[in-house]
């Protein structure tokens, strides 16, 4: 039974979904022992964590924590881990979580395993982690303690426990060096549109779309479904869409209820970003394209004809 410390990242009063998944992993690894959660500044989010498996919530409050400062958070995490004599430190495998855990590990002179899908307590502790965006798994041993790791997104389910945890605010010690890397400005995003990472429905176009203008029908279908528009890497490299729309290992990783992939062959690079989708509908001319072995539904045909037909049928059914 090792003391487990989980970094729970939050935004505007709500804990991040992957952080709750990290909490679930932490709880599993604690095996009945205490599950400590660290929250930075966000009191509203901190109070709900007992319901998700935390037994004690440490809320760090400091004047300089108004804007993100990853080295500062790393120090707070490390100092807390030392204070609690934590045996395992877990974070969410998001960009934010990975960088904080990496910095904490660097500070602590410890190894760090990112994007783990499974952990086995032992001597040494072993993890199974993602390589190649999930197309390959690595079994690795961590030869030092405490074990620092992040959990791969959407692999372990966040589990509501209905419990309650006390929130213990504290003021961490921070100095100038910890705040050298901090956000000094924020540029607001262009208003409107669903973000790809959070969208519940995504409609993507791939090489088969043929041109930037060819995305018209895709955008139309997405608008009808309230979906976000995505694309494959072939599209971004050709300059037809911006990289913000790219779904894939080096783009955005999506987890919608439904992913409609049009003219996308299904290369591993792309599927690594789409494997979080619950259901996948492929529209493709080639019935043997790699994507077909990952799809739940398929329409064999030219997307330039099929997609507008689907949009038309939706309008007809809605009586519009």
């Amino acid at each position: 039974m090792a003391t487990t410390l989980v970094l729970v990242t939050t935004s505007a009063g709500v804990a991040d979904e992957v952080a709750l998944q990290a909490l679930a992993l932490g709880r599993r690894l604690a095996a009945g022992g205490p599950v400590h959660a660290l929250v930075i500044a966000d009191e509203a989010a901190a109070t709900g964590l007992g319901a998700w498996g935390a037994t004690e919530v440490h809320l760090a409050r400091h004047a300089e924590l108004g804007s993100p400062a990853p080295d500062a958070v790393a120090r707070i995490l490390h100092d807390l881990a030392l204070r609690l004599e934590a045996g395992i430190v877990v974070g969410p495998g998001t960009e934010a979580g990975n960088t904080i855990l990496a910095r904490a590990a660097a500070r602590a002179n410890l190894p760090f395993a990112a994007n783990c899908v499974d952990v086995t307590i032992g001597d040494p502790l072993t993890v199974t982690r993602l390589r190649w965006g999930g197309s390959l798994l690595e079994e690795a041993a961590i030869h030092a303690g405490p074990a620092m790791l992040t959990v791969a997104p959407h692999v372990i389910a966040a589990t509501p426990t209905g419990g309650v945890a006390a929130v213990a605010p504290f003021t961490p010690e921070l100095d100038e060096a910890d705040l050298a890397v901090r956000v000094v400005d924020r540029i607001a995003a262009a208003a409107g549109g669903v973000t790809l990472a959070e969208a519940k429905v995504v409609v993507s176009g791939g090489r088969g779309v043929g041109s930037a203008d060819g995305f018209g029908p895709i955008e139309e279908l997405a608008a009808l479904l309230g979906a976000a528009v995505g694309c494959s890497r072939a599209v971004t490299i050709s300059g037809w869409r911006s990289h913000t729309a790219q779904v894939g290992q080096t783009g955005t990783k999506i987890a919608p209820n439904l992913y409609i992939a049009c003219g996308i062959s299904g290369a591993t690079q792309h599927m690594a970003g789409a494997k979080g989708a619950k259901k996948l509908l492929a529209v493709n001319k080639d019935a043997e394209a790699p994507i077909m072995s990952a799809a739940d539904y398929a329409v064999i045909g030219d997307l330039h004809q099929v997609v507008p037909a689907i949009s038309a049928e939706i309008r007809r059914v809605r009586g519009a």
Partner: protein
Amino acid sequence: MDAGAIVTVPLFILVLYVFLGAFLLRAAYLVRLVRAGRASNRTGDLPVRTAREVVGVLGQSKLFLRPIPGVMHLLLFWGFLVLLPTIAMSFLGAMNRHWTIPWLGEQGWFVLMVDLFAVGVLVGVAIAFTIRLGLRPVRFVGSYLQVAYNILLFEASITITLFLWHGSQVALGINEFPPEWAPVSNAVAGLLSSAPVPALEGFERGVVWVHALLILAFLVYIPYTKHLHTLVVWFNVFFERTRARGRLEPLVFDDPAVPEDQIRFGLATIADMTWKQMVDDMTCTECGRCQDACPAFFTGKNLSPKLVVMGLRDQLYREGHAMLAAAAGPAGPIFQGQPLVPTAVADDTVWDCVTCGACVRECPVGIEHIDHIVDLRRNLVMVDSRFPAEGATMLRDLERTSNPWGRSQTERTDWAAGLDLRVLEPGDPAPDVLFWVGCAPAFDERARIGAISTARLLKEAGVDFAILGPRESCTGDPARRMGDEYTFQSLARQNVETLGESKITKIVTTCPHCFNTIANEYPDFGGHYEVVHHTQLLAELVRDGRLAPAAGTDGVTYHDSCYLARHNDVRAEPRELVAAVGRPIEMARREERTFCCGAGGAHMWLEERGGQINEERAREATATGAGTLAVACPFCTVMLDDGVQGIGSGLVVKDVATLLVEAVDRGRALPEVRPDP
């Protein structure tokens, strides 16, 4: 000797000096340009070259692809040849009315020929004007029409003044030739005979000078206009490629004798033109036959092979002086040539070309348009990195994964699942023939059916063959046609090494592009093999009785692939197979005049702007009334199937091998019924 001779002789010599001088100055410029051109290896094969001169130039063979213009040009061309001596005669006659070429000037047979061929010229000019002003064919759009009219007017006026001169000679009785042998001149003489003698004498002098001056003016006009072709076509046709038409000339990147800044990466400015490209451009007659045959132009794109050649020619002439001045010495000015793309040829025009070769085939004067376009692409891709973005993905995939779709090489045997084929591993003994599968059949579900059929037939016939599987890399054809010669050469060397290690001597392939590249282009990289197209091998097996297809009566129309029928002259064997399994129905645009499916020139990976080439061909095939469209190429299979679906016709597209294996299966099902041997 006339009293006036003391004036006319030196006067004429002065006139001759001036006009001839102007002609020679311009001719010297053009010769210096060509001598400054970069190298192009065009030696060897003397018998073939000579035969081509005789048949192609003297016999005007390609001109007869269009019968009426062919007749017109034959009249003008042979008229010009036969009338050549009359030029000297008229020059002599201008100096002294009694002078002519000794002996020839007195021959009746010669003056008869002159009269007849001169009438021929006038008929030719009349036909030409009728075509140009009456029919106004589309192929002349973009040509310099006024220049063409001027040339015709020169020809007509020179001929008419010749008749007037001969006629006035006869009327005056000063002709050296027997007039009864010159019916037309005689008739003209009859019209003039009523004039008073002094007037007639003055007229005769006047008209011979006008005639001579017209000739001299025409002479100077020649090197400044497309009429230059009359002098240059002899060279251009002689030096046309005699080795495989489908072979592109390789670039050399690692010649230690060539300093880095002198390496030729393609056509950036006129300073990069090879001498053959320059002569090509100078020979262009602006006839537009290439434009008419071009599938890109036909489907509404900007590409016109004629306009490409004219654009390059015009820029060559415009900047040639500056280029020669710079080449004169290291202390001289540096040549800042304008980039040919976009100055002479627009950016997207370069990419419209599918390298089908219809233009080269139609061209009566030996221009090789594909060389120009690919060389323009080579510079755009390898130096400027200025090309359609979707092509970048394909080129990167080729480099990294050795196939243009970025798929895993280990998947190259997936298509053969269940066929129990021998996959050649390093160290294995070489098979009799290596079945080179190609990337399309390996990775495309529609294209692979032809390969599966071929494999089954080869097994049935007991042919000892194997496939390379994951060791087969793309031949590099899409890279080379797109202009990435560097990636092509790296793939070519890789493949030649693999084939050499396995000691392969004979290769069969279903893909005409692989066929063309391995047979015609790999020898430049040390790869020498006997290469056959699958239709050739299968036809041989059927002839030998090793395959027994049942005859069929269903209508089948066969689409000739450009790389097979035009670039490589394989036309008969696929037809043998189609005839053996069905009822052949031919399309109008067939054999060497076949119409592309649209996939060539790396277009399988590039976006097509404007109308669809494949749909156009699908329309043509559907119009034959056949139920099946037979193809012999995996690209054609996919493109034409797309085309057929695009126009909504019910035509079924199948590889010839698939039709054959179905016929063999049918033949087996009726064991009592065997086709006649």
